[in-house]
């Protein structure tokens, strides 16, 4: 031990010695004392400076204060005389140079503690039985139980004090109100649309059905968006069998309520092309009301029931439809366009194509009677890029006119109401974006949808 101490660099505190040698702190203190005594007896040249720890009672401010102080050797006696009762005196540290202040002592102690953090009470004189580190499993258990505890009081609070924790019901309310707002817009738009398309009874009935679906939507939308998403996914899975028709329905109906879809089935098949613009418009309205998710869900529902991956593609298709794409013919083309893009759903596409072509054929005749105000058409151009064009069609326009007239319908439809207003915008944007959309066709449609809404 002595040789060990001879080698010490600058200072040794009792704690440092205790950790380094692995001895009890009291033993370390005694070792230091012993060393000092011996060295002093030898009276070798090297001067050792010692600091002591003194503790005891001291009267201060009218209270008997228990004072614990680290003092230099030269102040030791003075401190001891100040204390009324001395509780302990022992060597705190030894150093070669005289210390001006106790800062370095702290640093030495801090360093040695840092390196021995895990067993800092190993050499202490007090052992606490309760201080046992928990294992990781216990810690995580405690953590989860704490979470559960915090949640169960919440639940209890919710149950007992519904008003207090009104956050939960209020957020639910808000969530439902927002969709309501969206649906409200939908409903408004659909009603206005019905005004526009009053010529055809079927569309009207569809509109009413649409309105009813719209009204039924708010309750559906009352769920949080995630539920909605999940629901939509579920619906898609469910409706896999009725994929084609379901798609048509969905395209016709406003986004959502799956329950409404079967209703629309009989009415929509025939009207599909005509309704294309409606759903397209509705989709646009949806987007207008910042319901991208609505669109997504809309699309999800519109698409055949597939998994989420397919859902994604689904979204693309109708989105691109809405984003300057036209209906039936365009949609079929668009579906064909989708083929080059990696798609996990060739079969559905195949299914869609016939459906769309069929729709196309069937709606060809109907177009004359009732035409959606806005149609966007996607077509595949030479390079295989998708080109979307916005085409306005007046109600009395024929199919052929649709394809060619872009500007004309705009003027024709000026007098229409809100839904039509979109047409001019889209018309303007259509030609502009012809190229843009082509390139964007493969991207997330949501961006286009954003523009669409405006």
């Amino acid at each position: 031990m002595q040789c060990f101490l001879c080698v010490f660099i600058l200072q040794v505190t009792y704690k440092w010695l205790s950790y380094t040698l692995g001895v009890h702190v009291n033993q370390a203190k005694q070792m230091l004392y012993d060393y000092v005594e011996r060295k002093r007896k030898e009276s070798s040249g090297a001067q050792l400076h010692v600091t002591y720890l003194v503790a005891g009672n001291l009267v201060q401010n009218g209270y008997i204060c228990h004072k614990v102080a680290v003092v230099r050797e030269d102040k030791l006696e003075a401190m001891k005389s100040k204390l009324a009762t001395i509780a302990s005196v022992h060597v705190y540290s030894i150093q070669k140079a005289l210390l001006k202040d106790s800062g370095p002592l702290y640093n030495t102690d801090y360093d040695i503690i840092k390196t021995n953090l895990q067993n800092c009470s190993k050499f202490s004189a007090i052992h606490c039985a309760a201080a046992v580190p928990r294992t990781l499993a216990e810690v995580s258990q405690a953590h989860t139980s704490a979470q559960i505890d915090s949640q169960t009081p919440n639940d209890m609070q919710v149950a007992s004090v519904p008003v207090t924790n009104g956050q939960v019901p209020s957020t639910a309310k808000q969530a439902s109100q927002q969709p309501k707002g969206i649906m409200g817009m939908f409903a408004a738009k659909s009603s206005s649309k019905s005004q526009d398309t009053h010529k055809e009874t079927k569309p009207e009935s569809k509109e009413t059905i649409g309105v009813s679906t719209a009204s039924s939507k708010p309750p559906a939308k009352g769920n949080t968006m995630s539920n909605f998403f999940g629901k939509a996914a579920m619906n898609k899975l469910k409706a896999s069998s009725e994929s084609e028709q379901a798609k048509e329905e969905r395209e016709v109906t406003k986004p959502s309520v799956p329950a409404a879809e079967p209703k629309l089935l009989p009415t929509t098949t025939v009207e599909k092309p005509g309704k294309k613009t409606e759903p397209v418009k509705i989709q646009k309205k949806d987007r207008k009301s910042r319901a991208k998710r609505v669109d997504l869900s809309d699309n999800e529902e519109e698409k055949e029931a597939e998994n989420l991956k397919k859902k994604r593609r689904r979204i693309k298709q109708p989105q691109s439809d809405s984003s300057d794409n036209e209906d039936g013919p365009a949609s079929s083309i668009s579906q064909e366009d989708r083929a080059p893009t990696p798609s996990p759903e060739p079969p559905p596409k195949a299914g869609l194509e016939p459906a769309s072509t069929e729709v196309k054929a069937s709606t060809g005749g109907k177009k004359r009677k009732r035409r959606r105000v806005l149609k966007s058409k996607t077509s595949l151009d030479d390079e295989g890029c998708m080109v979307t064009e916005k085409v306005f069609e007046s109600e009395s326009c024929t199919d052929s006119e649709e394809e060619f007239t872009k500007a004309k319908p705009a003027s024709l439809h000026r007098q229409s109401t809100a839904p039509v207003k979109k047409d001019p915008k889209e018309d303007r944007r259509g030609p502009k974006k012809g190229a843009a959309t082509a390139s964007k066709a493969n991207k997330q449609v949501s961006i286009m949808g954003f523009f669409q809404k405006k």
Partner: protein
Amino acid sequence: MFSEQAAPTAQGLLAPPSAEPSTFARAPVSTYTDCTEPFRLGQRSFSRQYAHIYATRLIQMRPLLEERAQHKWGSGIAMRKLCELQAGEKCCVVGTLFKSMQLQPSILREISEEHNLLPQPPRTKYIHQSDELILEDELQRIKLEGTIDVQKLVTGTILAIYGSEKDNGKFLVEDHCFADLPRQLPMRGPSTNHFVLLVSGLGLGSGSGESLLSMQLLVDVVTGQLGAEGEQSSAAQITRVILAGNLLSQSTQSRDTINKAKYLTKKTQAASVEAVKMLDEILLQLCTSVPVDVMPGEFDPTNYTLPQQPLHRCMLPLASTYSTLQLVTNPYQAEIDGVRFLGTSGQNISDIFKYSSMDDYMEILEWTLCVGHISPTAPDTLGCFPFYKSDPFIFTDCPHVYFCGNAPLFSSKLLKGRDGQQVLLVTVPDFSATQTACLINLCDLSCQPVSFSGFSADEDEGDMEIGH
């Protein structure tokens, strides 16, 4: 306490190494009950008005005050509501006090552009000669004048006043009374000396190392590394350490990210990160040896409004693996070894200090106990959660030890209540400034300050104030 026990073996370690050093077992805590449930908020919704707190406070305290009033002024006095007052009739009214202070910082005045006012500089006290007291109950309010100390009282106090309404519409107060100390459960303290150490205001992260050695000495004393054998055996009787707030220093609060340009502060870490790491290490050392309760304070990383929620255990990864670490709320209430503790980190007392003429923290502490409410100025001038069902700051029963942290000085007092209650009031001083902690003996409800010091270069010979 400590010293007397330890004195015989004081110099025992000034000797050659002995064969077997003695180790002492930490005195176990026989019973510990955490009573912080009323202060723990589950889901916090701030969408409510704060008026509900006052309403529930009045409703809860009204019966108590009516009883006290009848006790004081006779059972025959007329208890009236403000709306039933008749001019000239001597009666007793129970209501909430509101002190209208012209110097009170008002956010509306600050942001009002028409006045073109500069924001008020912070003061130590906001009292003014022209302050007025107004009593409010459920429906009305009335101005008070008479024998009532306007400067001393603060907003939010529930009291009963005795007097009559004058012709000018003001109420002339002849006497008033507060809820006084609530009843106290008998104390079933330990039979042997068990100590609880109260520390507050560690002030880590301050950048100045003056109190660091003292803090290390504190930890060493508690964990039994420091001191001769007698002292270590005494230290083994410390059954608990309560850290009463302000573990971090105020200087960790500066948010450069707000004031400085982003490119200057991009890679800088918040000062509190380093400070919390230090705290973790200190807590680890303590936790391996003694149960510790950590209360958050004004400058600690938790919510600002009272009741402050416990610090999150993810901030203290090293220490939170020990079950001896308890992260608790502010205010904190617990029953340790049969002795009921209740205390705060000091925000309530310092807030009353600002708005009242009372200067002594001990006086204010006692006053809150007499008024029956931990923090009457919340939510008026002190941030508070909008309770509406019940006000958890009302004293339901009298604690045996009532403390507040971060006081400028240490003081302790044994208060004796009218119905035989005995409360030890302790103001725990700010450790970073005073290097003093409090040691409470649960056996006889006595309190002793413990101070730590190192030495510094500018000490003179024979000088008394070494490090203190």
